[in-house]
């Protein structure tokens, strides 16, 4: 279960874990922009970017192979598109495009694997993301697995009752399952709201304190920017 692992990774205590979320988010953006804007002769810079990421993973005391394997999820899609580019006569571009997508996925993963969700959300908010949006995302993530499990159980039950064997039956059975799942999700939202009110909620989410920046944070940002600039040029 990927998300379980990811959540465990994010609770580490390395140098990287301890950096302020804002700084890590900005570093990610700087890194991604550098990678995206490197066009000519991508071979060497690509390798160097990769080295920086791996260095980051080691500094964060995260399992490099495990991380890279997760980032490889992006490959099936990018390889397909790259294949089209290759066939159209641009093999170097095809390779570059695949490398870039993999670097981006790995970098994003490094951010998420070193930043627990609450801090990540807070960091995004302090950088200007609307709180409403972040809270919706928080709720989506929180209940994603709960509802997915419910859906899975409902499908199993339906299949046990032979829901798959009639040609049109399978489709309608799936629609019915989703209808019920929708209704149950709606009711769950009501119950969540009920328990929020019971604990004094009056329409506004209050926050815990804002984290403050330390010199190490500034140092990290500067270091990332410098490394990336060097590679870029």
């Amino acid at each position: 279960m990927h998300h379980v692992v990811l959540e465990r990774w994010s609770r580490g205590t390395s140098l990287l874990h301890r950096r302020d979320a804002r700084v890590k988010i900005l570093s990610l953006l700087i890194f991604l922009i550098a990678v995206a804007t490197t066009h000519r002769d991508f071979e060497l810079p690509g390798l160097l970017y990769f080295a920086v990421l791996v260095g980051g993973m080691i500094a964060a005391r995260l399992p490099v192979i495990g991380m890279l394997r997760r980032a490889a999820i992006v490959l099936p899609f990018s390889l397909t598109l790259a294949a089209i580019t290759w066939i159209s006569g641009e093999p170097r571009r095809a390779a570059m495009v695949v490398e870039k997508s993999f670097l981006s996925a790995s970098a994003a993963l490094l951010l998420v694997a070193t930043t627990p969700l609450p801090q990540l959300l807070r960091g995004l908010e302090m950088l200007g993301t609307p709180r409403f949006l972040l809270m919706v995302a928080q709720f989506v993530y929180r209940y994603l697995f709960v509802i997915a499990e419910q859906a899975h159980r409902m499908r199993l039950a339906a299949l046990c009752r032979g829901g798959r064997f009639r040609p049109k039956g399978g489709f309608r059975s799936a629609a019915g399952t989703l209808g019920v799942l929708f209704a149950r999700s709606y009711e769950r939202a009501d119950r969540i709201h009920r328990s929020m009110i019971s604990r004094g909620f009056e329409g506004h989410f209050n926050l815990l304190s804002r984290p403050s920046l330390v010199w190490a944070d500034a140092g990290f940002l500067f270091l990332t920017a410098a490394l990336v600039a060097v590679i870029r040029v």
Partner: protein
Amino acid sequence: MSPVIIARNLHYKYEDGTVALAGVDFDLFPGETVAVFGGNGSGKTTFVLHLNGLLEGQGTIEVCGLPVRGETLKQVRQKIGIVFQDPDDQLFMPSVLEDVAFGPLNLGTPPDQAVERARIALDQVGMLEHQHKAPYHLSAGEKKRVAIAGVLAMDPEVLVLDEPTTFLDPPGQRSLTVLLRGLPQSKLIVTHDVEFARSLSKRAVFFEKGRIAGDGPTDRIIEQFRWIGL
């Protein structure tokens, strides 16, 4: 001492006309633990929802001397803490600590103190070491404890638990019993589980068709209503 819950002649009808409560009179005395029995649709959950103003019916209801209505609702919700059946519905914040701090923050406690109260509550239920975990990764029993901590952090005088042993295996039920026994608040426990009720409460009430059909010592109530299906 005066009762911590006083309900007089509570009536409630749902939008579609179903009568859920047909005249409920009930007192909960300080320090008591009372079990609430009753079949599905007997009105016991509807009754619970009236205790902190989630539903408003006819009749009167007072919690710790405060009428459960309008301007006093905020105070009422601090005095009476309700723990609902499915902890997943209550633990909606990304981390255990944030979730337990949710209540105190709503009461206006400054963030640092809210965190402190949350930690104390978590310690009370034995979940302090999990404070930074995401709720999804906890077991049913652990989630239940965190849910209780979330309510304890508000420093209530009355605890209401709605079917707390659902989702719990026997060991989980046993440790919940131990935990609840150690809490000083007055308690109302809605449950189907006869043994669980026996181990915690000396008094029980039996809901039937929107009324309290029986109110007395737990063993007697169990005996009296067993043939109806306790």
